[in-house]
């Protein structure tokens, strides 16, 4: 990144505890306008909780989330809330659970503008639905079909169209391809990239492994047990990982070449306790690693 674009989202010391479960335990990061920040970590590390806290599905335990300069969990007028709903949207993981089986594709996509009363007549509504369907690579005529008539990939496209319906600037994509066939994953990732280019979208792209994330992310945050252990540009994370957990995740990616794949060894991750004095260290400009001074120094040498 040469010129620093504006921050669209700032997360400061976000905590989300469910009783004794510390799903997210004090994470901080920024998202810049127009970029894709990949949020990666194994299942259960708190990625969805992070996304859902940012989009106000959960009341947060502690911390601050600032979106377009405003504290999103602060008091809001009905008008501000409506604007927030339009500006930030989410794409969900499960293409089956994320579409109401009693609704047609058209009804699902138009739910947002039905709620916000964003059309003048039936014709305009139908036109909007058609345009959205086409923008995600589906057919206009599919508007009257029920969710169960579509394949997993097509259903995910409907979910994307729904997220686009209110013309947001920021989209949280919570493992949007994890439940899809590998052959379809790339198509959906390409669609997301194309939409980003066309509409100037900013993404928080959540994934449980690093393999697909590198193709879509500008920067990557690696999450483990409710904490961000490493954050940097996608290239840095790939080529110069510092935290042993990141190295372990990288070693788990299968290689497209059979010769190197045969010799690929998975580096197991051995957890080292971090003391209370652990903090975020900037090892390169824009590349942060979480640990104690001594740990980071030692990891960095490797």
């Amino acid at each position, binding site marked *: 990144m040469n010129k620093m674009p504006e921050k669209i989202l700032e997360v400061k010391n976000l905590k989300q505890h469910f009783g004794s479960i510390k799903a997210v335990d004090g994470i901080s990061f920024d998202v810049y306008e127009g970029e894709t920040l990949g949020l990666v970590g194994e299942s259960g590390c708190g990625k969805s909780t992070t996304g859902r806290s940012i989009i106000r599905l959960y009341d947060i335990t502690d911390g601050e989330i600032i979106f377009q300069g405003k504290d999103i969990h602060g008091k809001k007028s009905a008008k501000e809330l409506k604007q927030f709903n339009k500006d930030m949207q989410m794409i969900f993981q499960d293409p089956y*659970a994320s579409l109401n089986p009693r609704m047609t594709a058209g009804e699902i996509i138009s739910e947002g503008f039905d709620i916000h009363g964003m059309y003048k007549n039936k014709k305009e509504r139908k036109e909007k639905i058609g345009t959205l369907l086409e923008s995600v690579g589906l057919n206009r005529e599919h508007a009257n079909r029920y969710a169960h008539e579509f394949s997993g990939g097509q259903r995910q496209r409907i*979910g994307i169209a*729904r997220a686009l319906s209110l013309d947001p600037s920021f989209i949280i994509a919570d493992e949007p391809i994890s439940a899809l066939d590998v052959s379809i994953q790339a198509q959906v990732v390409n669609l997301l990239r194309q939409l980003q280019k066309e509409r100037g979208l900013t993404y928080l792209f959540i994934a449980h492994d690093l393999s697909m994330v590198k193709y879509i992310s500008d920067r990557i945050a690696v999450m483990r047990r409710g904490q961000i252990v490493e954050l940097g540009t996608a290239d840095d994370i790939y080529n110069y990982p510092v935290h042993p957990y990141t190295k372990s995740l990288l070693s788990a990616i299968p290689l497209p070449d059979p010769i190197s794949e045969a010799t690929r060894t998975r580096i197991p991750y051995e957890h080292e306790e971090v003391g209370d004095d652990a903090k975020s260290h900037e090892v390169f400009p824009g590349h942060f690693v979480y640990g104690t001074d001594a740990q980071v120094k030692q990891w960095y040498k490797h």
Partner: protein
Amino acid sequence: MTQSNENLPKISKDKFTVVGGKHDQTDQLAAKSVSFWKEVRLRFMHNKLAIVGFFILIIVALMAIFVPWLSPYSYREQLGVYNAPPSASHWFGTDDLGRDIFVRAWMGARISLFIGITAAVIDLIIGVAWGSIAGLVGGRVDDIMMRIADVLTAVPYLLVVIILLVVLQPGLLPMIIALSITGWVNMARIVRGEVLSIKSREYVLAARTLGANTTHIIMKHLVPNALGAILVTMTLTIPSAIFTESFLSYLGLGVPQPMASWGTMASDGNNALDTAPWRLIFPAILISVTIFAFNAVGDGLRDALDPKLRK
């Protein structure tokens, strides 16, 4: 650890052939769009037992409507032939007061079905309200509401019935109260379970991120998705209410003479089992067949609605 593709041997593109792949952007949907309820109906119609049950219910309903209306006898008319066996003029025979059992049986069908359906509707109203509030509000409200339901089902049922018998005259009202006093708890539990599961589905989360309020979520998401389970529960409540009505009639809580329900007729007939068995047999058959039919329809509906069978 660095893994880049640069040190891989270059393989030219023409060594690859496309062997076909899944293309996702297709128009390959079935020719006709099938709504959820249409599909349920199709699946239901493939279930033979359910269809048999369905037609039995229609026949029972038609008989209950038309027989008392068209019959030459009235259900309370004493014809002077006592305990007569079934014959051409009295298809089901007569009872000890000389009343035609055929017309009484279908008059009884009206009462039994009325009691069953009323009990189911009361269960529906209380159970749906109770269960959906508990599920939606959650937390302590949910705890308290469900504990109240638990306590109600823990009170010995016969005790409640006997108290009702002492306080009220036997008749329709105490019968329906007796059936409803704990009957709704089952419906409330089922609705609560549905609400809890549906409200955390991703499509409800999506609606919330789009700015939907609670009314929208209830009307567009909760109701349409919980309707199936509610319908099945209701269909299965009716036969159990009809059965309990018969059982309570044996305890003397049945509708008073000369009115008849299947339960009171069977309980009367029980006393004359060796001399006039038809007085017990016909109402007993009607009770069993109707309960079977409702259960078959209810099970058929449940199978037709089960999303696990959906492709």
